[in-house]
């Protein structure tokens, strides 16, 4: 058995279901949880290095143009100030996820208001922050800079689908819907600010950073600095939320590195809270038009989804709004297309569930409009439109649990499938109503390596540069290895987030768990081969539990005083082209809408999800809860507000960028729908980090309509928008 697998065929053997330890798929608590709640898990900015300097980024006060002069003398005489760094290596933006090369340089070329342009370094943080606000900078500012995505021509994006004749289908259909939704920009707004400490010993650079994908970040940073990768070590053991904003190496990490190399002392750079919101990648605002045509039976004959998103000129990323629309519902006449407006707001990039996070809620609102027109229960409309195969390219689904999610979710929620009309229930000032939506999120996997060492003492060590961004990676790796090698979680030590370890897949696109646990699984299979030989049984017959062969020798005896190590190497193969793989789900929401003020409060929400093998019911459930909480924010409150005059972000702190607070989040129910998806990964698992928010805001929006009769076409549905749409 090789420890390398390029998966070209589905694996429906489900080996993990036949192991004996019984630890995978349980609700094991996070193995690093105690460190986190006691404040002893070191985050990037918390490493204590002798003689460490403090850097604060200086940001541009023009929207587009270039820095013509930086007057370092304007701050060098201030107390404690050591240097002003404006090296050409400084990056103007963060790298897009999986870029693997330096992002835009130099920082002196300004693409948006608030872009980092230089770094002030001082002995103390307060000195650096003070000086950063006094640095004199001269600019050449461009005129006629575009900020409004609706005010510029947009470029068509590749990958459009045109099939049949949608216009004709719309004309002929007994029921048709042509509606347009808008969504505002979202910020990842992670609690842990983007931060890094860099240390240069004259030959090698060590950087403690808060990053999601060290396997790509090491190349991005090396390329930014002109340094060989083998002279660079990145450490990111704990990440206090990333949500996509830490996928690519960002400005503070490059700036700390440049400064450390220039000054010969360690340098720490943490973004200020305002900078976190002003500089990190935004989710693009979107405008989305849907054309849905349906027959008398509610079956779709036409499906159109056209979207407009935005980004800076030259940035390759375009919020992939159509991603799940390509395959979620049937309809032989199809038009799917997207265009990108080039404007000068901060870079648009990945924010949790890029694409579906805003595409799915809008689609699910349009489906609700259609259900009403057809006179069908919205759950039934969806059940009738689940395609057998990918409706455009014809590939089979690897596994498809939408119908089960709709049914099990409806049952758990207590969904009333009877006739629906708005304003059926009023309690005092509040209209009460329900809504639902489907969930879908494409499944991804990435190349991954992990080394698993069985120690002579009968414990296991797992090493990879994979990160745990709060999702539970440490724990599911310990569970996977424990299951395969017959060890309790406590006997498995997991070391992550260090580029000295084998390359993991990084955390992003919900692919981390399935990819890295597959690599660990492969390493364990190879270890089991050796153990099986020593125990003189076939590997398939080797039963390991609690550190011993069941009814036989202990691991310690089999190891005979020597460690045994294997590196698992998993690579996605042709299977990705042979199947359409996706996680599916369904959301059900009950909301209250105040008939005077238009305030909406979510009263209850249920999410049912099928995403392959559940590796850990507690951490998976937490991912779903987080996703549903993001759904509440996307539905009701979250919007980046951009100034129309210079394009700067106005609401740049957590008081004014409104993520949901505790009181906004009611009890949320999560239902796991049993699934094994052998084409998704060798461990039959798919991703769950994002599925929980891919449609949920649509369920809330549909519940608002059902409660009070307001069809709102703009997210977030703040009181002003609800009131404007509310019938008298």
């Amino acid at each position: 058995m090789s420890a390398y697998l390029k998966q070209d065929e589905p694996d429906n053997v489900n080996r993990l279901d036949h192991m004996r330890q019984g630890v995978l798929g349980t609700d094991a608590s996070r193995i690093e949880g105690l460190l986190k709640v006691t404040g002893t898990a070191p985050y990037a900015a918390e490493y204590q290095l002798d003689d460490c300097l403090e850097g604060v980024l200086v940001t541009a006060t023009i929207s587009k143009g270039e820095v013509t002069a930086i007057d370092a003398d304007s701050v060098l005489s201030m107390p404690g100030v050591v240097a002003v760094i404006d090296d050409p290596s400084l990056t103007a933006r963060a790298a897009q996820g999986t870029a693997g090369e330096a992002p835009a340089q130099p920082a002196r070329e300004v693409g948006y208001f608030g872009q980092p342009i230089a770094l002030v370094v001082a002995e103390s943080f307060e000195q650096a922050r003070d000086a950063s606000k006094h640095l004199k900078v001269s600019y050449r500012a461009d005129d006629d800079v575009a900020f409004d995505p609706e005010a510029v021509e947009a470029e068509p994006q590749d990958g459009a689908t045109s099939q049949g004749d949608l216009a004709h289908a719309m004309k002929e259909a007994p029921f048709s819907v042509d509606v347009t939704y808008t969504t505002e920009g979202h910020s990842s707004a992670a609690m842990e600010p983007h931060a890094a400490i860099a240390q240069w010993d004259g030959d090698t650079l060590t950087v403690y950073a808060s990053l999601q994908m060290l396997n790509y970040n090491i190349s991005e940073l090396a390329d930014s600095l002109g340094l060989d990768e083998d002279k660079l070590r990145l450490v990111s053991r704990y990440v206090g939320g990333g949500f996509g904003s830490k996928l690519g190496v960002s400005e503070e990490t490059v700036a700390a590195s440049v400064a450390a190399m220039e000054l010969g002392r360690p340098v720490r750079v943490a973004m200020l809270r305002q900078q976190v919101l002003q500089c990190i990648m935004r989710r693009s605002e979107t405008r989305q038009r849907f054309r849905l045509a349906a027959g008398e039976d509610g079956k779709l004959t036409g499906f159109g989804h056209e979207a407009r998103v935005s980004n800076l000129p030259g940035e390759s990323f375009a919020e992939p709004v159509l991603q799940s629309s390509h395959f979620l519902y049937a309809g032989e006449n199809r038009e799917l297309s997207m265009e990108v407006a080039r404007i000068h707001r901060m870079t648009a990039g990945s924010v949790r569930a890029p694409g579906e996070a805003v595409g799915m809620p809008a689609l699910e609102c349009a489906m609700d409009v259609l259900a009403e027109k057809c006179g069908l229960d919205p759950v039934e409309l969806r059940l009738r439109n689940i395609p057998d195969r990918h409706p455009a390219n014809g590939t089979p689904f690897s596994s498809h649990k939408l119908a089960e999610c709709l049914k099990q979710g409806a049952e758990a929620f207590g969904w009333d499938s009877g006739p629906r009309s708005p304003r059926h229930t009023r309690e005092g000032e509040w209209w009460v109503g329900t809504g639902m939506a489907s969930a879908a999120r494409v499944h991804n996997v990435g190349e991954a390596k992990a080394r698993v060492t069985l120690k002579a003492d009968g414990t296991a060590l797992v090493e990879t540069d994979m990160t745990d961004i709060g999702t539970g990676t440490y724990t599911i790796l310990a569970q996977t290895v424990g299951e395969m090698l017959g060890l309790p979680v406590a006997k498995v030590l997991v070391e992550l987030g260090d580029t000295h370890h084998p390359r993991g897949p990084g955390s992003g696109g919900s692919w981390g768990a399935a990819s890295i646990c597959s690599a660990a699984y492969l390493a364990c299979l190879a270890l089991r081969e050796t153990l099986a030989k020593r125990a003189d049984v076939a590997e398939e017959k080797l039963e390991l539990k609690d550190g011993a062969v069941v009814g036989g020798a202990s691991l310690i005896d089999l190891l005979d005083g020597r460690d045994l190590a294997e590196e698992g190497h998993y690579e996605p193969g042709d299977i990705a082209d042979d199947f359409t793989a996706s996680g599916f789900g369904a959301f059900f929401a009950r909301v209250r809408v105040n008939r005077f003020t238009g305030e909406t409060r979510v009263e209850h929400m249920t999410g049912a999800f099928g995403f392959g093998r559940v590796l850990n019911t507690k951490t998976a459930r937490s991912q779903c809860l987080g996703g549903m909480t993001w759904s509440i924010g996307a539905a009701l409150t979250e919007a980046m507000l951009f100034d129309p005059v210079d394009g700067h972000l106005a609401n740049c702190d957590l008081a004014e960028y409104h993520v949901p607070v505790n009181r906004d989040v009611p009890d949320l129910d999560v239902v796991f729908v049993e699934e094994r998806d052998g084409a998704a990964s060798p461990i039959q698992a798919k991703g769950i980090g994002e599925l929980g928010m891919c449609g949920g805001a649509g369920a809330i929006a549909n519940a608002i309509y059902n409660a009070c009769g307001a069809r709102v076409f703009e997210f977030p549905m703040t009181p002003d928008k609800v009131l404007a749409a509310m019938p008298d």
Partner: protein
Amino acid sequence: MRPFDYQRAEGIDHAGQLIAAENAVAIAGGTNLLDLMKLQVETPQTLVDVNRIGHAEIEDSDDGGLWIGALATNTDTAVHPRVKADYPVLARAILAGATQQLRNRATTGGNLCQRTRCYYFTNIDQPCNKRDPGSGCGAIDGIARLHAVLGTSDQCIATYPGDMAVALSALDATVHITSAHGKARTVPVRDFHRLPGHTPWKDNVLEPGELITGVSLPAPVEGTQIYRKVRERSSYAFALCSIAAIVEMDGDKIARADLAFGGLAHKPWHDPEVGEVLVGQKPGAKLFDKAADVLLRDARGYGENDFKIPLARRTLAAVLAEATGAEL
């Protein structure tokens, strides 16, 4: 933040002396001031720590009213038995603001002096006549969602962000002030905050060197007390519109209607004519609309905040319906 001197005042007179220094600012809870210092919106040369000068008491006053010391925390005020029993609108307003952690630190005096949340005021890379006189107003042609629709000027459309002062305004409280020279004066809370006019940098009538010593509430009145705060999320958000109301019925007619409004203006908005429209009348939709007509007769939106005008009308109707039992 910029380097600053720190002085601890040992008593009110000492505080008065220290605060008289050039560019000296009093700090109590620091829940607003410290944030603004980090942003360099506030750049005091000296911080005068007034936390040890006493004046944290909440006491019955001789006229049956209540005295709330300037250093009483918002939490202590909100949970005080007499506040809860006789001035529930004040307790509710305080509890509608900020978070538990902030309320534990925030004080009566500091909260009255809370500065606006205008996005342009808190960003030193943007124009703001309040922060930097003569630099212009970024909000008028910018993001004005939070901003005022009443009492604005062409210099400033910022709102006063607090909740407590809105309730104090409805209660017709009095602010007690002392100066460096020990000279005391009182100002009705309804006159304490200012409209921006041509001097938007002046939030209130405190003169340099003056300190708030406390707030006095008149003897309690009969009636229903309500604090209603409309906001996008249900906690830790500033008001889009808020209303403090004390409404007393006499049979089927309104006998008293003391109303103050937050989120609409540069100060807690109190317009006696709104109450006058209501008093002596039978409650109902038409009457409430008439009151809203008076309240909003000079209202002006700035695009993004146009919604506040109908929102204030509807919120007023909701509050009056709740207070009077009228069916709408």
